[in-house]
């Protein structure tokens, strides 16, 4: 056997039946040990998520008491004031439907506070998807990216985002500040539960299962310790991460 092709024959010399049988054996269940970091039964998952998020340097905006308008509107205004100019925002199209509570707030604070927000007037983008398809250049110039989280893991304070038509992958990546909207019904307990829940979601296309083309876990702001092991945030991804907690209502998508 020549050196070239050795790996291919190592991998390739199996017929389908043998392969299927062997794969079947590989997929046998091997229960992984319980670990104390997983939330205990009955643990308050929202509280746990909040604690983990804050330990990572993320911020928590709770709408449970005051309602979304009273929390989000002043928060956006204060960001704009801090910049001394209107805030450049790119918004997940799923949050820009008429029934979305976030959409109402954005409309109410728009003038003088928010800029580059064509989608505050619902339009369509790409394949008839409502909202705006922000370009990479627009995302790179934005101050804030607002996305609706698909799932979140309380154990580790992790947000899970899958690509959606009309929502760029870079929405939670290019702007220096990421606001993630998290409804309670999307919060799962631990890492293992995440893999169970993601199976229940539909795939990106007919050929795909829920694992689909792509998803990403986000745990806290972007960080590095590459210089003398000193922790520094915001190296390539957002240096600020804020989670807007919706205790009940899930904005319709």
């Amino acid at each position, binding site marked *: 056997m020549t050196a070239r092709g050795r790996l*291919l024959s190592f991998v390739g010399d199996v017929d389908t039946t043998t392969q299927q049988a062997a794969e079947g054996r590989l997929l046998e269940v091997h229960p*992984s*040990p319980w670990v104390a970091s997983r939330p205990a039964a009955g643990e308050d998952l929202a509280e746990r998520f909040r604690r983990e998020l804050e330990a990572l340097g993320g911020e928590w905006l709770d709408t449970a008491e005051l309602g979304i308008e009273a929390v989000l509107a002043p928060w956006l205004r204060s960001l704009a004031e801090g910049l001394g100019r209107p805030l450049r925002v790119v918004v997940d199209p799923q949050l820009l439907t008429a029934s979305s509570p976030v959409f109402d707030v954005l409309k109410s604070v728009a003038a003088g506070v928010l800029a580059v927000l064509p989608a505050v007037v619902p339009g369509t983008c790409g394949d008839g998807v409502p909202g705006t398809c922000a370009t990479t250049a627009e995302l790179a110039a934005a101050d804030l990216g607002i996305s609706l989280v698909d799932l979140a893991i309380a154990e580790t304070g992790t947000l899970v985002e899958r690509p959606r*038509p009309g929502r760029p992958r870079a929405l939670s990546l290019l702007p220096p500040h990421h606001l993630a909207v998290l409804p309670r019904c999307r919060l799962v307990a631990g890492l293992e539960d995440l893999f169970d829940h993601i199976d229940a979601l539909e795939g990106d296309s007919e050929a795909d299962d829920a694992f689909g083309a792509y998803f*990403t*876990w986000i745990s806290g702001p972007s960080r590095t310790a590459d*210089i003398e092991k000193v922790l520094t945030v915001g190296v390539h991804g957002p240096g600020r991460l804020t989670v807007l907690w919706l205790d009940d209502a899930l904005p319709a998508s």
Partner: protein
Amino acid sequence: MDINTRDFPARARQALGDGALRRALATSNKSFRHSRDQAVAEIPEWQALRTYGQQAKKRAVDALPTALNAFRDRFTARGGQVHFAEDAADACARVRAILERHGARRIVKSKSMVTEEVRLNQDLENHGYEVIESDLGEYIVQLAEEAPSHILAPAIHKSRQDIAELLHRHLGTAPDADIPTMTRAARVALRQRFLDADVGISGGNFAVAETGTLVIVENEGNARLTTTLPKVHIALVGIEKVLPRRRDLAPLLRLLCRSATGQQLGSYISFIGGPRRSGESDGPEEVHVILLDGGRLDLWHDPKGREALHCIRCGACLNVCPVYERIGGHAYGWVYPGPIGSVITPRFVGLGEAKDLAHASSLCGRCDEVCPVKIPLHKLLLENRAQSVEQGHVDAGAGLVVGGFARLVGSPKLWRWALALARPLYRLLRRTPVTRWGALGAWQAGRTLPSLEGPSFRQRWRRRHARGGGR
């Protein structure tokens, strides 16, 4: 990276004499160890978790042909492309073929030890491509025209002053800029490179066969940018990274992240299953995974070496290694330093090429204790030693010394006699520098010899028993 493993003794000696390097390594290792120990202490079930990790990797590696085959099928079904590369030249040629097809010129990279292994940057630069490393540490060593010295923290051998001067020259920051300022400057400089890049090249931590998913763990966000913005994404991954089941990810991610940086999880973990889907406005239009042999198959076929393929590259064994802590990553002369480097480098570059690495260990066994997938590193090191003796890579002098030692310890009488002689000789050696005497001088130069206080253990034991004391 060039193979410089033959110079290991000389490089190690030079590193030992470098005070700044030794201080930097001592601080960083301590910090790594502290974070890891804290994160591990949070999980009382850590040992059970390690055992699970060990078994999961064993199942994966033992079934490597099946798992690789399944990964290829699933990933291809998702629209991705899978290539198998035999060696460094093959891997580089496959990357270049993809670049040529797209007329690409500008390449942005996120951290990947496999690309170091195949010397991809040099190859691409020789062919006129512009390659930029985007991990902050990799970017720093690239600007300094050096090689990474740690698999997680490539620039850990450099002080902040070194880096401030470097960035001053390249990015125009103040010569005494602080760390946040330097980080911001690198962010701005690299952001444009990401936006301009034609192709992104990454590594990968796991390739899940069941789902056809490539998993990349990181902290900075540069791997997300590398795999999101350019039109084409190429990942170079060692064949041993394939995992059969997605459910093994939860325990392995816990083991990896806690052992590597003491985090519960890396800030970003990307799960990539082929190119963007219709309706998406970003994400690569083509995704390639190049799976590299590069010596791994030989290791797989050796029942006494195969466990080295279980490694998940967490770096924990480097951070506890007294040898690594004193000489740093560059001395090892190739891509992988520390205990795991001493184990796999000779297997990848040849035992004859790297015979000294098998001795870059005090066999203290701390690496075995921290390894999250329980690789018996010191046993594998001994196996390398044995194999290099079998293959005749040991010089006659060493053979004589070891043979003589075997005779000594084989006979209690000879041994006592030798010890009696050794004590005065040792005392003499402590006081007298013998730099001119070759090997003995070299041995003496690198250390401060402890004094031999009082009588020997044997003498004390005998005396104590003569007094009738039990304790």
